[in-house]
């Protein structure tokens, strides 16, 4: 499969122009507030809070980046342009994941900086009865030692786990978008009638499954209704050993590997589905 890189660049440039146009870019505001809140909390209070940002932002990426296209129904324009649909899919996957990689890297570096500079000491100092914000690093150190990791190892592991979840979420969102962009209308409240679309997006279903299924399994094991404990034990022990070996990087690599394959599957499915979609 040959990739036309110059065409990729053009499509990405068009998308960037589309993204910046239009009034009432409410998703951008939400993104900024969210980033500011969690990023700020992460930097000034606890880096562990900032680790959730890659996961949270992944949910906003697709609707945020393409909200103008949705709003002005310009998805059909692509059917008129002399490009292969596959090229559009390639370009968008490339763009979204490229942006996500940049954002995640920036967040990671900021949180690592916060971990070393400990700016929360500036906040806690002077508050009666408090220590120098030592509790933050103490909690991280305690948690890390219980898991057999260094504090930075625990931090890396959590970050890569959230990033992997974000990769999965983006892949599912993009596939849903290419299948039917109108499902994001309700999220953006762009429908004229004001009624929310009842059809669930694939990403919502996947997100629900990601949260509900492990929770049900956990509840089932804890209450001993499900005999899944013994099967889960191998993953638990393997996970624990991976966590401790190479200071968490092996487990982090495992998460990323699974996420990348999930993204690959969704990419190929998207190409196939969008190719035959009637625009």
């Amino acid at each position, binding site marked *: 499969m040959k990739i036309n890189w110059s065409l990729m660049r053009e499509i990405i440039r068009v998308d960037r122009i589309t993204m910046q146009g239009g009034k009432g870019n409410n998703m951008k505001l939400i993104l900024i507030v969210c980033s500011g809140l969690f990023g700020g909390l992460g930097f000034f209070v606890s880096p562990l809070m900032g680790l959730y940002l890659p996961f949270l932002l992944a949910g906003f990426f697709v609707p945020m980046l393409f909200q103008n296209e949705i709003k002005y129904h310009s998805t059909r324009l692509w059917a008129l342009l002399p490009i292969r649909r596959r090229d559009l899919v390639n370009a968008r996957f490339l763009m979204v994941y490229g942006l996500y990689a940049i954002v995640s890297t920036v967040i990671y570096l900021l949180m690592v900086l916060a971990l070393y500079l400990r700016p929360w000491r500036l906040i806690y100092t002077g508050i009666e009865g408090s220590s120098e914000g030592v509790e933050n690093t103490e909690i991280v150190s305690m948690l890390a030692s219980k898991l*057999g990791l260094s504090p930075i190892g625990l931090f890396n592991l959590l970050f890569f786990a959230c990033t992997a979840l974000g990769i999965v979420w983006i892949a599912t969102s993009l596939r849903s978008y290419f299948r039917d962009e109108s499902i994001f209308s309700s999220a953006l409240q762009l429908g004229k009638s004001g009624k929310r679309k009842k059809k669930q997006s694939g990403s919502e279903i996947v997100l629900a499954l990601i949260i509900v299924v492990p929770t049900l399994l956990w509840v089932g094991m*804890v*209450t*001993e209704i499900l005999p899944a404990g*013994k*099967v889960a*034990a*191998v*993953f638990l*022990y*393997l996970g*624990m*050993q*991976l966590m*401790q*070996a*190479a200071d968490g990087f*092996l487990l982090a*690599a*495992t998460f990323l*590997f*699974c996420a990348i*394959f*999930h993204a*690959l*599957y969704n990419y*190929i*499915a998207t190409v*196939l589905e969008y*190719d*035959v979609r009637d625009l």
Partner: protein
Amino acid sequence: MKHLLKKAAALLCTGLLMINMSLPVSAEEEDTSPLLPSGMTVTEVEKAFDDYIRLNTGTSDDDFMGAALVGIFQGDEVLFTGFYGETDKEHGVKADENSCFEWGSITKTFIWVSALQLYEQGKIDLNKDVREYLPEDFFRHLSYDEPITMLNLMNHNAGWQETVKPIMNKDASTIGSLRDELQAVEPAQVHRPGEVTAYSNYGAGVAGYVIECITGESFCDYVHEHIFEPLGMEHTALNPTHSDNAFVFEKRSQMHSYSINSMLAHAIDKGSNTGYVGMYPAGAACGTIGDMMIYGQALVDESAPLFEHPETQELLFSATSFYGGSDIPICCHGFWPTECSVRIYGHTGGTHFGQADLEIDPVSKVGIAVMVNESSGNHFNNVTAELVFGTLDPDKYGATTYGKATDIKGYFMPARSTHVGMTRLDPYLFAINAEQFGADDMDCIGSGLLQLTQENAEDGTRAAALLGEIRTPDNKLVALQSPSNDLIPVKAYTLHLALLTAFILVGVAAVYMMLIRRKLRKAGRWESYAGAGFMTIGRIGRLLSAVLMVATFSFVVSGGIPAATGAVIGIGQMLCLAACGIAAVICIVSLLRQKEKAHTVQYLLCSGANVITVTAILFFEMYRFWNV
């Protein structure tokens, strides 16, 4: 005047009497209870027990939830017995002197005592190969020609790995003879006899069978005749179903064991019995705390009621293996010495239904017996021994040190594990980093002896624990010695773990690749190419192999892999090995033969993934279900 003087005298006497009578009330009551080796009195220890139970009764994993029995004796005098909690929470049955708890591995001490009894009668040579006492071809797959002696069995260094097959019978009717039970679970011999200590229930079971072969009677009957009856232990049973003692049989069936569900903050009632130990000399004894104390008292009795000569009892507690090259014993004829403020000898026990501990100090003749009905967590039996016997003073052996043990690095796996066969991956999941057990903080105190010192942050008191090192003549570390279970260094652990991880991940990747292929076929976009079919077979093989590996480990967690199940899994892994191997070869051949290089990436990735699976199956012996 006289009348006045009499009145004054009466007043004075009354005043004096009142003062004298009030003195005992205001003075402190003296604690006259006996002093224990820890420096605490029995009264203080009793209070400490009460405080521990009161403060630790709760719902977290380490808390006390069930029942506990504890007895302290000195010589033939019982200093204290305590009964805590309930043996049946639902019916409110409190623990008492009639409660029958499981002894667990303390049962093994009956084997060692029996062996010394036969030794003093000249019926056994402790240094002779036990095969001379056993039926011919009893062992079916030993790896080394070196003799296995009774001392090897006592020291748990005969070289056997942990059993793979289950040692617990769920159904009493399936329990066979001791010989049959032992032969059904014979594990592989992975170390040369005498080289490494790896606690072995199987080895102890074999020792029990040796007693049977020499005496011509069942081990249970022998112990009843030569230990229980002479000592008057009327409330202890030994056979797997406890049917050799009607009292114990009845009481044990009423005793429930518990574990903690800390998530839901309640005790899980595990019922009264869920398994039977087929090789029963290793751990099937059950009885009252009173009987355990009688047994312990006999072991500290200078008249040695269990033996014909007191010297035999002294021999029982003489060292059979040492820490490194030092003269500090690590094993004494099957009894494990522990360095506290004094040196104590004893054995712990643990089953799925409870834990127990019996420790004695032959010098002061103080001993303690503890039993709880929780299988894990609940450190009551650890706390009790420390309260009675104290802790090791770091300066006792470590007054002079030769610096820190700086060359103990990397990962270590317990010798008591499975090192060959389809469960070979098991120790890789439990390996520990040297830093985790404080290797970089250990002091070298000479002669292969290491000491780990810990300081209590609250009161500044220090306590120490000993380890030993076994090294080759060129100073290469072979193992770290700890009582009953050496730690063996693992070379290239991270690489092996990465291989195991990659094995699982290529299985996951196979699922996605098959989903992608299915998607392409449904969309009519699938173009068949050379080797595609074999690549699919390879993917199925990778996925199936990963599933079988998970199944293997699930059985291990459940208590063992039955022989038939192991065979099915092993044959399945062989088929996966063949499928992945063929797929890898086909991919490489197709890669080399292809003209247009259109599928180079697919061929490379697929062959690489199959090679990883083949390597993992071969390295971790996932196919091997025989001689394990």
